[in-house]
Structures are given as structure tokens and as C-alpha cells.
């Protein structure tokens, strides 16, 4: 490996201590590479803690524009003495290990298959800067400078980024540039630069941005016209509301009066958060909340109420590792079943599965349209990997001719002409009824209730009236299957392998398919984007003897949902599962598939 030229195709991992301000240094590094036209992906591995615990940032430089982890580490920048030994072990053979050698550690020079580059980063920063905090921050920027020499990062690009970041703070620009130069010079003097793993300008990031899914989802909510957002802080969904707040301040504040054309409420808990969104949606506002697994458990009662009373509601679930508190800063797709059937009684909910930040933006808008059209909760199942990591995405686009689909609502003028308003009357036969909004017209008034009701909305304990409502709700769900976004299907002639998956698995699956193709195995791939499943999902699976179902949880929840909802036999759905909490890599998938093929279980 060491001798092989690895231009634009390697992984850098930076090991630091959280709370030391390494995030801005790492972001600078990644953006510089991105600006050189080279595709990159950033993954942040952080602890559920504020200060003092190990944290890693991983930058995959990928000329082929893969979106997932490679599963290997080629260059380790070890800045945290607590994890030096583990970090050294994790570098793959032929890799490079850089550490802060202010105190030289002979035990780190033991691997003969790894190039160890000691750089006295603390010493360099301490000599050049004063003040404890500045020295720590500049030590981080110094390794960016060293990497610039080792990898041939364009210094002008770094300079430009710093100028943009600290637009009018010249002192900060200067100190950062000094730190970069110090690191750069040291590496040039001490080592053979560049390394065989290095960068070379490409033109593959034009028209792309680097964005995390929570920011993109929040932007989607702004563009969809959401006015009320209520939330309770929980990792990893908090940044969605941070972003929504920022965008609203920017786009929704009256410049003259300072009044706000939105209302964001930080609730006392998740129960209140969804209750507030529901109250606002009942009144006709586009309202939403966001949470993660523990919040889904708490919100279940209200999800049942929203389902049964038929109030539109948008809920983002940024999934993390469960059960219980689980691992709050690690990713998983383990809320699929609990979200699909959340709450007691016969309930089922519309789910959307974005696969990257661009789709978070797009599906956020879709979620509001669907919720209003179907008068039911729509849950967007994102996850920590999509929500909190920076992904390269095509620039977000907006069509100014878009108009929201507010669904079937009788406003005052229609109610006036109506002989009798019945809230749950299936006028059009699609299971979706007409609603009225509070305050509009006396004729639209009714008492919405979570207790048994008939099609007029009145209280009932009669079985025939109850069944009529429940059967219609089931029909409405069938209608939903015709309205939700269909799957993305990629077929290859004479495919040997068929894969079904969803959400953030997408990048790893793309890469898996390339690796399989290199081994002469062609593959078909269906990416589910919504529940209920449309007919295309069923027919895709029907057209293959066996299908690999790739997902990030222990209990094969998507597979269970497919079996329950389509009746497809268990032996035709081969589970491929990863649930360790790190973002999925093709490494986690490919061996399982190859092993199954060896045993004759391919598609």
C-alpha cells in the first residue's frame, strides 16, 4: 500500500479531545479539499459529553464521490494522548500516523508498516502564541498547516476560507494563517512532501454544497411555510431547531417592526412539544416538532390522538442508537417499527426516509403537503449520520411556482353553503374527509375528540359507527400508498443480486454495488422512500427470488415491516444488518452478501 499512489482516495482521521475547538480546524481542512474540486465526506464521532472525552473527525477523500465511510483509516492525526495507542492500532497497513511529539513517545514508533510522523504541535503553537485557549486552538490549526504540506492542500484556498469565516476579524485571520504557515513549514523541512497519499485538483464539486441533514430539513420547513415549531432538546435532533430558529430570524422577521412571522416554542418535554404542534396544526398552521428515539416513545400517545382525530402533523425523528437512552451520539435506524405503528390501538403512520441532506430538504416539503393532504402525522425518519454530518449534495433547488397542498379544507364561504357539515364523512371515497378550521364559521364547529366518534364527529360507543371510522382510516392509508414518494429503483440487466434498503444506507450500498460489479456480480437496487409501501416495492421483490434487505438495526425492522405489510415470505428477504452505531460502510455489507452468494442464496 505504501508505495501505491493514492491520489484523492484516502481517509484522514483526527483524534482530539472534545471541547478543544478542533471542529473549526477540521471544517477548514475539509472545506479546503472540497474547494479543490475533490469530493469529500465528513463523519464526526463525538461523545455524549461536553468537555474532556475523546472525539474523532473523519474526512474521506473520495475521487469516486462515494458518500459513506470507507471502513479504513489511512492517515491518523493523533492529538489525544488518552487514545494514542488505540489510534495507532486503527491505522491500516501502509498508512501514516501523525502525533503531537512535544513529548516524544517511543512506544508509538513500533509499527513498521505505518509511517509515523512526529510533529511537536503544542511546542510550535506555544512558541508562536500566548494565552492558554489560543495556544490550544492554534495547535489544531497547526496540524491543518502540516497536512497542507503533506497532502498538497492549496494554501490560497485555506487563506480564502479563513477570510470568509472571520470576515472582519483581521487578528483571527492573521493568527490562523501564522499557525498554518508554522505547521506547513515544519512538515516541509522534516518530511518528504507530499505523501504518496495526496490531493490533486479535480472538478467534481461544482454545483455542490456541504451540508448536514438537520440544517437542510429545517430549511425545508421554512420553504414549506411552517409557522409553528415546538421542540424539546435531544441529541441528535437539536440542531434541526437551532437551524430553523436561525433561518426564521433571517427570513421571517419583519425588518421594520422586528416582529416575527413564526413562533418557536421550546417545550417542557416531548409530550408538550408534540401537543403544541398538534394544537397549532388543528388551528390550520403548518406545524412540526423534531425529536429522537426517546421522544418517539413519549410522543406516542399524541401520535395516536393525531391519527384518530386526523390532524396533520410533521415530526422529524433523527434516529440514534437505542434502546432506552442508548448511545445518544451514535447512529442507527431502529425506530422504523415503533414509528410505523406508534401508539396503542390500531394505528399506522406515514413515514418518509430521506437518504441524504438534499432529500431532507425535499422531503420536509413533501411531508407538509402529505400531512395536509392526508390529515395525519407524517414522520420523517432521518438519523444522526444524515442529520449531523456534513454531506456533499447537489445545490438545493427551489421552484417558485410551488404552492402548498393544504388538502381538503372547507373554509367559511364553503361552509356557509353547506347544508350540514360532517367532519368524518368520506365525500370523495378516498378515505380523506373535509376538515374545518376553528374560528372560520359556526357551521364548521365540532368537538374533535380522541374518544370514539362517528362520521359526524359526535361521541359514540356504537360498534357500527366505530367500525365505519376505523375502516375508512384504513382506506385512507391505502390512498396514502398512492401519494407518497415512490422508491428509487436501479436495475441492471441479468442482475445476480437484489438489494432493498432505505435512508442513510444508500451511500454504502452504492459502493457495495461497485465492488460487486468488480467481481462480476451485477445488482438491482430498490431504495424505499416511504411507508406505506407502494406497489413498486412489492413488484420489485416479487421479480427476484431473494432480496437482501440492508438496514441499521439488530432486529431487521424494515424486513419485518415488509413481511407484515406485503405478505412476502421470510426466506425471500435476507437480512443484512449493522447496528454498531457508526455510519454504515460497504465493508459492513459486502462480506455478508458474498457469503450468502457462496452458499447459493443469491437473488
Amino acid at each position: 500500500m505504501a508505495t501505491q499512489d493514492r491520489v484523492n482516495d484516502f481517509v484522514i482521521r483526527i483524534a482530539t479531545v472534545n471541547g478543544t475547538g478542533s471542529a473549526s480546524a477540521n471544517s477548514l481542512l475539509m472545506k479546503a479539499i472540497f474547494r479543490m474540486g475533490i469530493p469529500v465526506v465528513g463523519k464526526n464521532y463525538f461523545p455524549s459529553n461536553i468537555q474532556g472525552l475523546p472525539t474523532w473527525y473523519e474526512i474521506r477523500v473520495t475521487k469516486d464521490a462515494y458518500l459513506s465511510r470507507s471502513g479504513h483509516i489511512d492517515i491518523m492525526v493523533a492529538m489525544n494522548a488518552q487514545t494514542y495507542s488505540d489510534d495507532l492500532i486503527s491505522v491500516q497497513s501502509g498508512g501514516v500516523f501523525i502525533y503531537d511529539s512535544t513529548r516524544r513517545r517511543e512506544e508509538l514508533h513500533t509499527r513498521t508498516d505505518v509511517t509515523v510522523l512526529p510533529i511537536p504541535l503544542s511546542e510550535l503553537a506555544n512558541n508562536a502564541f500566548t494565552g492558554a485557549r489560543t495556544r490550544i486552538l492554534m495547535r489544531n490549526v497547526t496540524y491543518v498547516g502540516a497536512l497542507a504540506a503533506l497532502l498538497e492542500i492549496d494554501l490560497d484556498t485555506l487563506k480564502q476560507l479563513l477570510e470568509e469565516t472571520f470576515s472582519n476579524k483581521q487578528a483571527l485571520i492573521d493568527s490562523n494563517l501564522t499557525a498554518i504557515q508554522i505547521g506547513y513549514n515544519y512538515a516541509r523541512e522534516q518530511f518528504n512532501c507530499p505523501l504518496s497519499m495526496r490531493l490533486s485538483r479535480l472538478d467534481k464539486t461544482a454545483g455542490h454544497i456541504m451540508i448536514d441533514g438537520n440544517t437542510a430539513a429545517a430549511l425545508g420547513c421554512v420553504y414549506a411555510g411552517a409557522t409553528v415549531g415546538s421542540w424539546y432538546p435531544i441529541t441528535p435532533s437539536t440542531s434541526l431547531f437551532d437551524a430553523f430558529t436561525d433561518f426564521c430570524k433571517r427570513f421571517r422577521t419583519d425588518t421594520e417592526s422586528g416582529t416575527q412571522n413564526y413562533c418557536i416554542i421550546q417545550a417542557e418535554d416531548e409530550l408538550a412539544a408534540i401537543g403544541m404542534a398538534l394544537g397549532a396544526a388543528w388551528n390550520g398552521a403548518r406545524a412540526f416538532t423534531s425529536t429522537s428515539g426517546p421522544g418517539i416513545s413519549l410522543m406516542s400517545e399524541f401520535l395516536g390522538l393525531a391519527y384518530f382525530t386526523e390532524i396533520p402533523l410533521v415530526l422529524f425523528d433523527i434516529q440514534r442508537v437505542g434502546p432506552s437512552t442508548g448511545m445518544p451520539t451514535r447512529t442507527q435506524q431502529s425506530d422504523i417499527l415503533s414509528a410505523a405503528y406508534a401508539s396503542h390501538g390500531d394505528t399506522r403512520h406515514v413515514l418518509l426516509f430521506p437518504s441524504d441532506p438534499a432529500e431532507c430538504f425535499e422531503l420536509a416539503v413533501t411531508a407538509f403537503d402529505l400531512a395536509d393532504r392526508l390529515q395525519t402525522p407524517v414522520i420523517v425518519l432521518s438519523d444522526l449520520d444524515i442529520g449531523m454530518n456534513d454531506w456533499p449534495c447537489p445545490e438545493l433547488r427551489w421552484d417558485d411556482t410551488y404552492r402548498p397542498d393544504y388538502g381538503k379544507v372547507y373554509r367559511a364561504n364553503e361552509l356557509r353553503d353547506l347544508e350540514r357539515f360532517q367532519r368524518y364523512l368520506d365525500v370523495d371515497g378516498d378515505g380523506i374527509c373535509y376538515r374545518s378550521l376553528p374560528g372560520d364559521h359556526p357551521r364548521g364547529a365540532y368537538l374533535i375528540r380522541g374518544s370514539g366518534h362517528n362520521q359526524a364527529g359526535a361521541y359514540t360507543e356504537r360498534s357500527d359507527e366505530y367500525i365505519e371510522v376505523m375502516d375508512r382510516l384504513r382506506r385512507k392509508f391505502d390512498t396514502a400508498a398512492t401519494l407518497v414518494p415512490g422508491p428509487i429503483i436501479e436495475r441492471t440487466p441479468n442482475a445476480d443480486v437484489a438489494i432493498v434498503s432505505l435512508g442513510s444506507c444508500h451511500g454504502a450500498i452504492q459502493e457495495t454495488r461497485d465492488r460487486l460489479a468488480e467481481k462480476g456480480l451485477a445488482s438491482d437496487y430498490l431504495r424505499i422512500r416511504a411507508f406505506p409501501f407502494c406497489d413498486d416495492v412489492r413488484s420489485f421483490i416479487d421479480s427476484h427470488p431473494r432480496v437482501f434487505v440492508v438496514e441499521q438495526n439488530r432486529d431487521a425492522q424494515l424486513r419485518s415491516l415488509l413481511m407484515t405489510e406485503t405478505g412476502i415470505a421470510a426466506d425471500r428477504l435476507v437480512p443484512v444488518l449493522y447496528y454498531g452505531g457508526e455510519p454504515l460502510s460497504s465493508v459492513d455489507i459486502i462480506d455478508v452478501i458474498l457469503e450468502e452468494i457462496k452458499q447459493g442464496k443469491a437473488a
Partner: protein
Amino acid sequence: MSFIKKPRINHPGLDTNAVGLTIQDYEGAMSTLCAGCGHDSVSSAIVQAYYELAIEPHRVAKLSGIGCSSKTPTYFLRPAHGFNSVHGRMPSIATGASAANRDLHYIGISGDGDSLSIGLGQFCHAIRRNVDMFYVIENNGVYGLTKGQFSASADVGSPARKGGGTNEIPPIDPVLTAINFGCSFVARGFSGDKTTLVPLIKAAILHRGFALLDVISPCVTFNDHEGSTKSYLHTREFEQTAVYADFVPIRDEITASVDTHVTPVTLHDGSQIHLRTVDPDYDPFDRDSVVAYLREHQNKGQIVTGLLFVDETAPDMLTLSSTTQTPLVDLSFDTLNPGAAALKTLQKQWR
């Protein structure tokens, strides 16, 4: 319990209010509560208050949780939208509803189980936020729908009607709780005294911010027996009205000739409440002294009623958040959507 459909009889001679509606236009369906239930008197007082204030009933939103009291929105203001939500969670629904449309009048009906046990958290947080709503606790010290268990407002020493022994756990007093959490309007009434209840309700409706009305509303089936501190008999005997409230509508000329011990408070729409304090030292604008007064009388076993505390200057939730005066539901999509060009500019930071 009644299960016949309430007949609608139009009396041609019925008076109309300022918006041309009769009191019948403010009524609801026939109550299905027990005959003599205090809650029905509260509903009737609510009907009269909205009628007299001439608020169009369809501009009112009625919200409730779960329990006997939470059933009552069906029994008043038929032309108003209602929301019978889940147990203890009505305050959050009301908070969101108010955020979306600040122009409606919100009335929340709850009970001591709904607000002081399962819903205590949401109750307190709605108070903290000063959500602009009128919040009624129909307080009878028991769970009626599940047949007579003690609630969190049951007094120490209260005997259960059948079995269950005596309550030994100290009660949560909604009035003291509300005052301590910064509530801007706190009143207590008695369902057996409609004449004092109606002006309290009118003032509470017009107060901007969270107006709590705790109504001792006896449960004739499970908590009206001897020894109960929430019975009609006990409440009549131990009720001590501290502050009488007279409502003076905006349409009436407000004369300056007010008695000593009478303090006029001007509400946001310009109407007034005249507070007549029984004790000359009682100050309904001083939170700390009100708490001390209530504690002192509570310790003597007295039930202090009246408009006990009011602060018309406290900013409500939407004032604090600088939310636009236009109801958010009425903002046009063009106002809300930044458009394609803004999106393009915005994305430069992510390059």
C-alpha cells in the same frame, strides 16, 4: 344522567346581546353528568358570561383533557370548535393553538385530576409562559369517571365515600401553585354561587394572559358526603370571599365614584373589573402578601374565594416572543417563503 337529545326551543321574546345572539346561541348539548353536578353550574355560568360579553361563539376555542370536567365543553357554546384531547395534556394543545391563531378566545376546561396529577407539569408551564387563555379547574377532590378515587386536591383527613379510608397526603392547591408560578390572574369560585362566578369568568376571559379560575365544584356522587371538604355543605360553611369582583363592560360609562376598598382594574379591551376587598389590608396586586393571606386562612380550614390576584401588565407568551399581531394562520405563503433567489444566496456559505 340524561340521554335524551336536548330540544331546541326558540322563544321569540328572548333578549339578544350586542352581536344579535340570544343566550340559547351560547348553549351546548344536554349534559350527561350526574344530576346536581357542580360542573353543570359552571357550564351555565360560562354560557352567561360569553353571552353577556357578546363574544361570537364561533370565535371561541374550547379545549379540555380527560375526566368529568373535560366532558363539559360539549355542554356550552355549540357553535365553537372544541378539542377534547388526552389526559393532562390540554395546556400544550392550547399553547400551540394560541401560537397559530392569537385572535381566538381560548377556554380550557380541566379538573383536579387532569391538572394537578397527570397534567401538573403542563399546567405549570402554561402558567410560566403566560399563554393567553382562560383556564378553569372544576375542583372536586376526586376522580369521578373512574368512580371516586382521591385526587391530588383532596384535603388531609378527607374520608372516601366507600372504602379507600382517609386521605393522608397533603393536597396541591391550584391557586397557590398558580400564584407561585407567576400566574397573572388567579381566582377561586364556588359552583354553588353563580352570581359571583359570572363576573369572575368575564374578567378571566378578557384578561390577556393566563387566567386561572379554580372552582370548587362538588361531586354529588363520590364526594358530597359528611366529612368531605369538597362538599356543598362544607364549602358553603367555610367559604370566605376575600375579593369581590364586579365587571364593568366597556360600553357602560365608567364612573369615578368608587368606594374605599374598591380598586378598578382596566382590562386590555378597556372594560374594568372593580375589586372590592373584604379585608382593607388585602392587596390583590401583591403576590407575596396574597400567598401569606391564603396560607393563613387555609390553615384555619377556610376556603378563600374571589379574584385573588391580578397583574394586567405581565406580557403574554406571544408578546414575549414578538410574534406578529396577524394570526400566523392568516399569513400568506408568499410572506412565508423566501424564494429561489434567497436560497441560492444562502448556499454560498456551504461551498
